[in-house]
C-alpha cells in the first residue's frame, strides 16, 4: 500500500516536469496533455458522483466555525464594543508601541537570518553528499517537535552570561533583544528550508547545463537561473517564519528578561494585561496583532497564487 502512494506522488511529479521538456517531445506531450484535459473535464462533470458532499462539507464547516471562527471573532466583537477612543488610547500606549517595535524588529531580523541560512541549508542538503546528511536532514525539524518552553529554558541557560555559549561574548545576549532574536531563529529555522528544498529538488538540470554551455559560471547560473526559481518559496518561507516569530511566546519569555520598553514583546503585553484582569486592553492589542497576521497570510496567499501561475504559465 505504501508503494502505491509513492507511485502516485512520483507520477504527479513527472507531470509537473513536463513543462521543461524539449520541443519535439513537447508537442507529443502537449497533445497528451490536451487529451488529459478533456478527460478531466469529463471527470469534473461527474465529480459529484462521489457521495457524501453535504455531510462532509457540513461537518468541516461546523467544526471550523466552532473551533476557529466563533472564538476568533470574539476579539473583534469585544474590540467594537470598546469605543474607538478607548481602543486607540490602549493600542498607542508608549509601552505597547515599544513592544510592537521590538516584536517587529526581532521577528524581521530572525526571519531574515532564517531565509539566508535556510537557502544555504536546503542547497547543501539537496546538492551535496556528506556523512551524516540524513541525520542532519531529520534534525532540521527539531524546532517543530521540541516544546517551545524546553527551547526557551535551554537557550536561556546556554546564552546567559556564564552559560556554555554566553561566556564567550563580552556583551550580554540573554535578557537583551539579541537573546530574543536567537530564540526566534531557533523557532523559525525549518520554514525556509522546507519550502525551498522541494523546489531545488525539482529544478530541471537541463537549464543549468544550458546556462553553463552558454558560458555562464556557477555564480552567474545561480543568480540568473536558480535563484529566480526559488524566490516564491523563499518569500513564502520568510513570511511563515516571520508570522510565527511575531506571535511566539513560549521560547521568548524565558530568554527576554521581560523588561518594559526594553525586552517586552507584544504577546507578553497581552499576557500581562490578562493577569491584571484588563481584558479590554488585552483584546485591543490582540486585535492589532491579528490584523497584522491576516495581512501576512494574505501576502502568503498572493505569493502562492503567483507561484502557481509561474509554473503553469510556462
Amino acid at each position, binding site marked *: 500500500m505504501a508503494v502505491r502512494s509513492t507511485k502516485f506522488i512520483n507520477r504527479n511529479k513527472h507531470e509537473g516536469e513536463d513543462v521543461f521538456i524539449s520541443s519535439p517531445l513537447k508537442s507529443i506531450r502537449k497533445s497528451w496533455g490536451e487529451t488529459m484535459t478533456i478527460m478531466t473535464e469529463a471527470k469534473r462533470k461527474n*465529480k459529484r458522483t462521489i*457521495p457524501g458532499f453535504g455531510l462532509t462539507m457540513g461537518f468541516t464547516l461546523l467544526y471550523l466555525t466552532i*473551533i476557529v471562527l466563533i472564538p476568533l471573532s470574539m476579539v473583534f466583537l469585544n474590540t467594537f464594543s470598546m469605543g474607538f477612543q478607548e481602543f486607540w488610547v490602549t493600542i498607542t500606549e508608549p509601552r505597547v508601541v515599544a513592544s510592537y517595535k521590538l516584536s517587529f524588529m526581532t521577528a524581521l531580523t530572525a526571519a531574515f537570518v532564517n531565509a539566508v541560512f535556510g537557502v544555504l541549508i536546503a542547497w547543501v542538503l539537496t546538492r551535496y553528499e556528506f556523512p551524516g546528511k540524513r541525520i542532519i536532514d531529520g534534525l532540521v525539524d527539531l524546532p517543530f517537535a521540541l516544546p517551545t518552553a524546553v527551547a526557551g529554558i535551554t537557550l536561556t541557560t*546556554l546564552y546567559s552570561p556564564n552559560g556554555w555559549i554566553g561566556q564567550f561574548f563580552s556583551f550580554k545576549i540573554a535578557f537583551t533583544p539579541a537573546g530574543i532574536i536567537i530564540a526566534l531563529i531557533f523557532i523559525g529555522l525549518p520554514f525556509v528550508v522546507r519550502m525551498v528544498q*522541494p523546489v531545488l529538488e525539482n529544478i530541471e538540470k537541463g537549464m543549468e547545463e544550458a546556462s553553463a554551455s552558454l558560458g555562464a559560471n556557477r555564480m552567474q547560473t545561480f543568480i540568473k537561473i536558480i535563484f529566480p526559481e526559488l524566490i516564491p518559496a523563499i518569500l513564502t518561507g520568510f513570511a511563515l517564519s516571520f508570522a510565527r516569530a511575531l506571535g511566539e511566546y513560549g521560547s521568548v519569555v524565558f530568554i527576554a528578561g521581560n523588561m518594559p520598553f526594553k525586552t517586552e514583546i507584544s*504577546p507578553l503585553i497581552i499576557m500581562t494585561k490578562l493577569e491584571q484582569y484588563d481584558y479590554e486592553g488585552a483584546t485591543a492589542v490582540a486585535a492589532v496583532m491579528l490584523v497584522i497576521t491576516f495581512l501576512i497570510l494574505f501576502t502568503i496567499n498572493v505569493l502562492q497564487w503567483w507561484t502557481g501561475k509561474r509554473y503553469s504559465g510556462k
Partner: protein
Amino acid sequence: MEHEHSVVAKTNGPVIMTKNATKEPKSIQWILISIVLLFLTLFLVVPLIAIFVKAFEKGADAYLAAIAHPDSLAAIKLTLIVVLITVPLNAVFGVVAAWTITKYDFKGKNFLITLIDLPFSVSPVIAGLIFVLLFGLHGALGTVLQSLGLKVIFSIPGIVIASIFITFPFIARELIPLMQSQGTSEEEASLTLGAGGFKTFWYVTLPNIKWGLLYGVILCNARTIGEFGAVSVVSGHIRGMTNTMPLHIEILYNEYQFSAAFAVASLMSIFAIITLIIKSFIEWKTGFKSTKAS
C-alpha cells in the same frame, strides 16, 4: 529527463564536462557544508545536548526523583489526557476536511483552505485569549456556563479546546496535497463496482492515505504535548490539577529548580526525538515529504 541529458552530452562534448559545469568545485562545497554544519550545531545540536547534561547535573537519583515527583506525574497524566482527546478529534476533522476539499469541486475552495490554515499564524497567547473571552467568567458564554455549573477556563476543558485550536490544521494540511495528487479515479472505480460511499472510503481511500495520516498525527501529537502559550493563558497554573508538562517546566524553572526543570524537559525532548525518527521513517518508506512547513 534522461533524453535531454544525452542530447546535451552529445552536442557539447564529453559527459564529464557537463557534469562539472553544474557542480561547484570541491573546496566551495566543503566550505558551504562546514558553514551549515556549524550553524546547525550551534542552534540545534548544542541545545539538545545541553538539555540532557543539565538534567543529569545532580545525578541520576535527583533526575528520577524530579520525574517521580507527584506534581510531575500529575503533569504527565494531564498532558496525556489532553493528547488523547485533541489528536483523535483533529484526525477525524483532518480526514473529513481533506476529503471534502480534494474529492469535490466547489467555489471558494482556496478560501476554505486559508481558513483552515488560520490557526498556524495566530499567536498562541491570542489563541488562549479568545477562549477566555468566550468561556471566561466575564466572557460571552460565561454566565450560561456558570448557571450550568460548568467550568471551562482554569480547568481541563479549556486546556483541551485551546490545544484543539492550535493543532487544528496539522492533519488536514498534510492530507490535502497527498489526496490531491491521488485524484478521484480509484474512488470512482470503487463506486462503479457497487461499493457505497463509506465502504469506498474505508477500503480504498484510507489505505491510500494511511502514511500521510500517521505523519500528520505525529506532528499534531508533538505540538499538542509541547503547546505552552495558549495553555498557559487558559490553565490558571493550578499545580497538580491544571499543569501540563510545559507549564510544570516553567514553574520549576522560575523556582530555580533547574535540574528538575531540565529533567522534565529531557523527557519531552525524548518524545521530540522519537517524533523526528518516526517522521524520517515515514518519509523514507513512502517518499512522502511535507511541502508545507507546519
